[in-house]
Structure formats: C-alpha cells, structure tokens
C-alpha cells in the first residue's frame, strides 16, 4: 500500500511538471576558529520535519580552497550546503570528504558531483553494498526532503596521514567501531577535531554497524589527541567530555547487554529496561537504545546459549 502511494505521489509530481520539492533546511555556518566552520543538525532521529538533518557538517577554508567534511542526508541538503559555503567564502571548494558510509553523511554528494569526493576504501566498499537500502529507508522516513536524491560515490580513496589545505596541516585519522571505517580530521592550526560519528554528545550513539570493542579502542586514540574543540558527528560542540560520554554509554550498554543475556532476558523485555538517569535524557532516547538492542543483543545471547545435548529420537 505504502509503495503504491509512493508511486502515485511520484506520478503526480511528474505530471505536475515541477518535479521539485522544496525543503529549506535553514542551514547556518558557525565559525569555530579562523576559517573553520560547522553546520549543526538536530539531535533527533530522522523525521519528516527535520528532513534528515540530524548531522554536523564541517568545512575548512584554506589559503586557496575549501575542504568540505560530509555532505548531509539529501540532494537538497547538499545543494543548500554548497550555496551556504559559497555565501560564506569566495574561495573555491577543492575537495569533499565523506567520514563514513552512513547516509546522513554522504547523500548530499550529488551537489558536489563535479568536484573530487574522497573516502577511506572500506567506506567506499560499504557505501556500494548498502546505499540502496539506506535510500529506501530514508525516503520512507524523511519523505519529501529526499526528493531527487541519488547516490554519488566518492571517486578518490584516502589514507591516514597529513594532508595540506594551502598552509593548513590537517591530520586524517582512520578509526573504526562505529562503522567499518570512521575517518576523523584534526585541523592543526585551530585545534578543531572533527570526530565524525566516533563521538556522540548529548545524543545517544547509533549502532547499526557498530563493533563496540573496536569503538572503545578508537576512543582511546581520540583521547590521546591534542585538540581544543570537538565537533561530534551528532550533538552540540564539546571537548574531552564528549568522548567520555560516548565511552560511558558504550561501556554501560555492552555490560548491560551481557548481564541481560546472562540472566536470560528476552529481547522484547530488554527493550523496556529502565535507562540510567545520565542516559535517559540524551537526544533520541529511548528509541536509539531500542535500536541498539536489536543490533547488538544477538551476539550477547549467543554467549549464553550453549549447545544442548542431543536427546534420543523416539
């Protein structure tokens, strides 16, 4: 039924000839340090009202060009982001980076298709495998604001290490654990760390492709970096406290799931377990916790369901 309605809506839109949805994301660039900007999103989950804008996007203006860090959840977002950057600086965009393969970070690539777009090789492979499913899901949840969005893959691969943006030294740090590959950028002149979805702040971490053990190890590395301002993938700007909060939640979540499996909790029961006060008020709670139970609980259940003795067949 839903699919049929979608088809009808698409047919009507085409018939109307306008073939264009208008969704104004009202993007604003906030300058954190000279030449370093963030475009902040909501701390909710994807909704029709927020058009999928739940993500923090960055751009850094160098001597002769601009580096864009992630492109947002849709074509319209990407177009509005590009217009915002072009209003903010007269330097040309020279490169676009996708931090990881989740759709809210690269579905705006379409608006930058004429420019070099780069990501880690594992990220590109994961995008190829999963972009179609992501698109179906986002169209379903976000609707109108997704209009005309098509997947544009990064054409260049990145490796960990320093890159230059004019005189600026920007360090690329390749981590994993939130997804199969998570790229973090440290702008050395300003001390701004673009932590991507390695760090969630005042907003519950999402775990559809998470490996919590790898994620916690990656947080160790982040804590060792010398930075002044941290831009999380989702949530307000922070500092080391944002890393500590993400770590606290992941540690609690994994211990909680393990203890639940050890006492034989059923998955549906576990979804309604009370959350500790310090997590209950994070953005997107308790829905994000419920999603994490779906993603992560099966691997804990396995640990506590040993092979049963085979009985005599009567």
């Amino acid at each position, binding site marked *: *039924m*839903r699919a049929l309605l979608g088809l009808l809506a698409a047919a009507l839109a085409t018939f109307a000839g306008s073939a264009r949805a208008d969704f104004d994301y009202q993007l604003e660039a906030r300058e954190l340090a000279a030449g370093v900007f963030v475009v902040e999103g909501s701390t909710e989950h994807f909704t029709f009202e927020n058009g999928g804008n739940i993500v923090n996007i960055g751009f850094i203006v160098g001597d002769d060009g601009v580096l864009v860090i992630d492109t947002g959840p849709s074509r319209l977002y990407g177009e509005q982001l590009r217009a915002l950057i072009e209003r903010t600086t007269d330097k040309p965009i020279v490169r676009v980076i996708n931090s990881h393969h989740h759709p809210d970070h690269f579905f705006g690539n379409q608006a930058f298709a004429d420019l070099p777009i780069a990501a880690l090789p594992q990220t590109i492979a994961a995008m190829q495998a999963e972009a179609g499913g992501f698109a*179906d*899901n986002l169209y*379903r949840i976000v609707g109108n604001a997704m209009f005309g969005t098509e997947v544009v893959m990064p054409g260049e691969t990145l490796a960990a290490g320093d890159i230059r943006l004019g005189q600026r030294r920007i360090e690329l740090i390749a981590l994993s654990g939130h997804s199969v590959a998570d790229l973090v950028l440290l702008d050395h002149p300003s001390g701004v760390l673009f932590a991507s979805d390695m760090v969630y702040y005042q907003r519950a971490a999402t775990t*559809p492709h998470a490996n919590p053990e790898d994620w916690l190890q990656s947080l160790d590395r982040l804590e060792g970096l010398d930075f002044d301002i941290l831009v999380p993938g989702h949530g307000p700007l922070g500092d080391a406290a944002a890393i500590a909060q993400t770590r606290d939640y992941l540690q609690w979540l994994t211990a909680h799931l393990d203890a639940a499996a050890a*006492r*034989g909790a*059923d*998955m*549906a*029961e576990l*979804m*309604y377990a009370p959350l500790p006060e310090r997590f209950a008020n994070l953005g997107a709670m308790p*829905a994000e916790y*419920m*999603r994490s139970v*779906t*993603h992560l609980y*099966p691997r804990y*259940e396995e640990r*506590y*369901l*040993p*092979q*049963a*003795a*085979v*009985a*005599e*067949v*009567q």
Partner: protein
Amino acid sequence: MSVPKLLLIAAALFAGTAHALPKDPLHSGQWATMAALFLGEQVVFDERVRLLAPPEAEDSMNFPVLVDASRLAAEAGPIAEIVVFADYNPIPLVLKFQPGRAAPRLGFRLKLQQGTPIRAGARTADGVWHVGHIEVDAAGGGCTVASLAHGNEDWSSRLGEITGDLFEREQGARLRFRVMHPMDTGLADGIPVFRIEHIELSDVDGALARIEPYEPVSENPLFSLDLPQSAAVSLAGRDNNANTFSAEIRP
C-alpha cells in the same frame, strides 16, 4: 456454513448482544477476516493479554515480541492456547502456543513485510478469545527475502541443531532455546516453504508445552518461556520436510 448455524448467527444478531465481533480500535481492514480465520465466535479485546515489542521494526527479519497473558490467567483461569497473527503480513498466522504447565508467556521474533497490527488471542477454558494487540511500523521486506541460510553453505549440517539454557528464577526457570532452521516462507523466488511445524516440550512430569511456529517466525527461531521448575527439559520437533530434531536442556 450450515443452515442451523446461520440461523443461530441471525438470532444472535437479532438479539443484538451475543458474539458480535468487537469493533477494532486499530481500524484494520483485515480484522474481521483475521478473527474468522484464527479465533472463535466469542472474542473480546482484553488488556490483560499484553504484547511487548518496540514501536518500530529496526530489523524486519527479526522483530522481537513477547506475548504475556499471565495476568489474564491469574484472574480468569488457565489459558488453553495463544494464537499470534499480524493482519497485514502476506502470511498473517505467526504462531500457536499451548502453554500447558508453562507460564502463558512466550518471547520470539518474526518477519514483517510492512507496518501492521500484531495481535495475540488467548483462549480461556470457557472458549472466549481474549485479544491484545500492538501496531508496528516496519520498512518491510522481511517475508519475501531469502533466509540467510541460502548464502551459507554449511546451513544444512546445522539444521535442527539446538542451543539453549535454563536460567533460574525466584520461582521456576526461564528457558531460552534456539533451533537452527531457515523458516523459509515460500515467498522468495524459487525457495519453497520450509518451516518447523511443531516443538513439544516435556519434563519429568510429562508434557509441558507446545509451540507451532508458522512461516513468519524468524530464521533460526529463538524462544523464551517461563517454566514452573528448574529441571531438565526435553524438546522434540519436526519440520514440514519430516526432519525431526530433539534435545535436552539441563539446568
């Protein structure tokens, strides 16, 4: 339908009271059909039949539900049978559960094709079906996607393998067990229905409970039940290809 039965229904309608199907608060167009297929003539909605499940399906192949009619049982007597169905699933019947000596409470996962009401009818000894339900949002695809087993070469060597454990509770024990089985719906191209038909549970005191999982139950189904005592449980089941499987789970 026989003439006397028709007359009976007409009489009931005329009387305006007995056995009228209650109006569905979820406004599902399938409700009357579902009630006719899976329930009896006496149907009431009853909050004491509780379904615990998330509001949205994050994974349409594995949507967790815990059906719990224990409050109904405490107040209205033993539950003979629980039937679970999802109105808008292409195969609506999810499972049947005869709790026997186990608590009238069962946790499992199912495949969802789209947003749908999920309902559980619990039949008390007087023949009345007490129905609880929830409404779930789902992206879909759960029933028409091939089971993961078909991408995995060694699935047949693990077919019917059972893992599980008994977890002691203050009273009795929680039993959790998983049976390796593709639970194919027959709706994915070229893959016929292949499902477990029934699983019998017994202990030293004899028959304990019976589960009949239908096509929508998830691949490698994992069940949670609450038993009166923490004692060894025997499981015996068969699938629609006449494969049998059995196991003993000890505390």
